[in-house]
């Protein structure tokens, strides 16, 4: 992405968040109340015309039970990493609370996330030897991720709620080199099912304690399909079988959500694999020494 475009986008994101934080107060309040419910890992969504602007997620209530969101980190990655050819990793999520009656709520959410990264893998092809030009060899990867979630929430009493759901994430990545001169290219597919649950205990209208558990009972075998070009007369298709992620990855994350007039902070540190909410993917426990964090700070108005 062009550096100036990257800078403008960064300014736009900051301005949007600042404007949101200083917006004219609406009737909506973010304290933990009967009406104002936790949004993450629950079946609840924003009210109509309600905003959520945060470090991790931006959301807007289109209708009473339909919100549209985008996760910020995939966008911000594009601001800081020059390898992105797309503007970060564009993503959009629709979440609808289909049922919200008495003590029970049920939601469905669908997300799309895609992106494209290209890095110079052989700068020696450039006569100058340093800068990557269009003549250099690039390694490129495109990805498309679409998680689908169903979540239910049950209010046991005014202080305690239980939230249980499942998320199926389909992922496809396509990689290769260009210019394409005798090499391997391919595409990978991996699908996974995540089951999650959250216990919520409201200590006050400001503080709610949570314990979130996530479990990955199913990960499809990763199948990479590609092409090998040897010369003009000889080529091959290749199908590679690989086990990238382990079944039964899990995380147990004690945390808390602090909610004031508009500001909210969500914190948690747990044990297990790191479940990356924006993309529905999982970082194996060994990568982060079995530390599984949760964090967000946002305003809701």
């Amino acid at each position, binding site marked *: 992405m062009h550096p100036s475009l990257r800078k403008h986008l960064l300014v736009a994101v900051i301005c949007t968040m600042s404007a949101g934080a200083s917006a004219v107060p609406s009737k909506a309040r973010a304290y933990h109340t009967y009406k104002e419910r936790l949004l993450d890992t629950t079946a609840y969504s924003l009210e109509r015309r309600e905003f959520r602007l945060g470090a991790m997620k931006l959301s807007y209530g289109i209708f009473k039970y339909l919100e549209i969101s985008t996760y910020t980190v995939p966008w911000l990655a594009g601001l800081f990493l020059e390898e992105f050819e797309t503007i970060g990793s564009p993503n959009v999520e629709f979440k609808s609370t289909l049922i919200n009656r008495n003590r029970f709520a049920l939601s469905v959410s669908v997300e799309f996330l895609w992106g494209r990264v290209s890095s110079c893998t052989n700068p020696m092809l450039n006569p100058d030897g340093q800068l990557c030009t269009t003549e250099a060899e690039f390694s490129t990867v495109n990805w498309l991720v679409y998680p689908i979630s169903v979540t239910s929430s049950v209010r046991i009493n005014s202080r305690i709620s239980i939230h249980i759901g499942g998320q199926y994430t389909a992922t496809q990545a396509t990689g290769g080199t260009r210019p394409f001169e005798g090499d391997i290219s391919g595409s990978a597919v991996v699908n996974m099912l995540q089951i999650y649950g959250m216990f919520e205990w409201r200590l006050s209208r400001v503080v709610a304690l949570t314990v979130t558990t996530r479990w990955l009972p199913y990960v499809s075998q990763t199948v990479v399909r*590609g092409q090998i070009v040897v010369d003009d007369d000889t080529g091959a298709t290749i199908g590679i079988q690989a086990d990238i992620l382990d079944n039964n990855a899990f995380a147990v994350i004690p945390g808390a959500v602090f909610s004031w007039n508009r500001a909210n902070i969500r914190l948690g540190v747990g044990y297990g694999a790191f479940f990356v909410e924006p993309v529905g993917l999982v970082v194996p426990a060994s990568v982060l020494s079995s530390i599984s964090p949760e964090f967000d700070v946002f305003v809701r108005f």
Partner: protein
Amino acid sequence: MLCAVTTMSCAETLDIPVAPDLDDVVVAYASPSAKISGTVMEAVGDELLELRELLKQSEVFEEILDVIVSVQLELDANTDESGNLEVPGLGAFPEPNAVIEINHDCAGWERNAAEGDAETAGSIRLTMLLDTGDVRPEVWGDATQCKFLAALGATTLQSSYDGQVAVHFGEEPVPTGERLRDLVITFVLTGTLGVAGKEVPIDQSFRLRGEGDLEILWELNDGTSFVYLFNLETPRQGIRDANCTGDEGCSCSLEERECTLPSGSIFW
């Protein structure tokens, strides 16, 4: 231009095909069961001589081997020191199991043709498997009207092959960096072999042992078999049967119609 494959993201599995079972053929080379006699050689000697010349002139084994080796080299070029197969953009896959479907357009009989054309020059399609990163020792497939030029001294001969192909490289999977041509390579061809305008049906196994040694497994009507061996570069030739074992076998000349066995010489 980015050359990539796209697939829909649905639950995919990789079906690994079953390689042809060549164990019986390999065992037959190691333990030939036939007992050679003058009568036996009288019956098969001329046919064996004709097959030898056909294989020697057509170089069909070189045509097939070239294709396999070129793909193996490409795999090796994309395998790092730890044995990970690298797919640009998608990362490195440690010790992968893989199915490789090879397509080769044969060169045809036009020496100056820019490139092969499967419609007129035919093609070879082979299946190769990777077993935890190594090449499984069986490669198989078929050739469809594959036309190619074989060098015979200073001249070239128009060769062709149409039929099934099975190649065996030994008992163990072969690392991508290992020279395939250094191994004992067993071929089984079932089809039609052509050279210099002559086409002959073939249902035959033969194998390369390195340094130009080539062995033909000859099956007799009674189910037993023996091995005829010769060298592509030198006049050396011999026979291995139930009574004459060992890599070198016993001296035998098809042209002079004489074999020297442990029990004495036979003539036909």
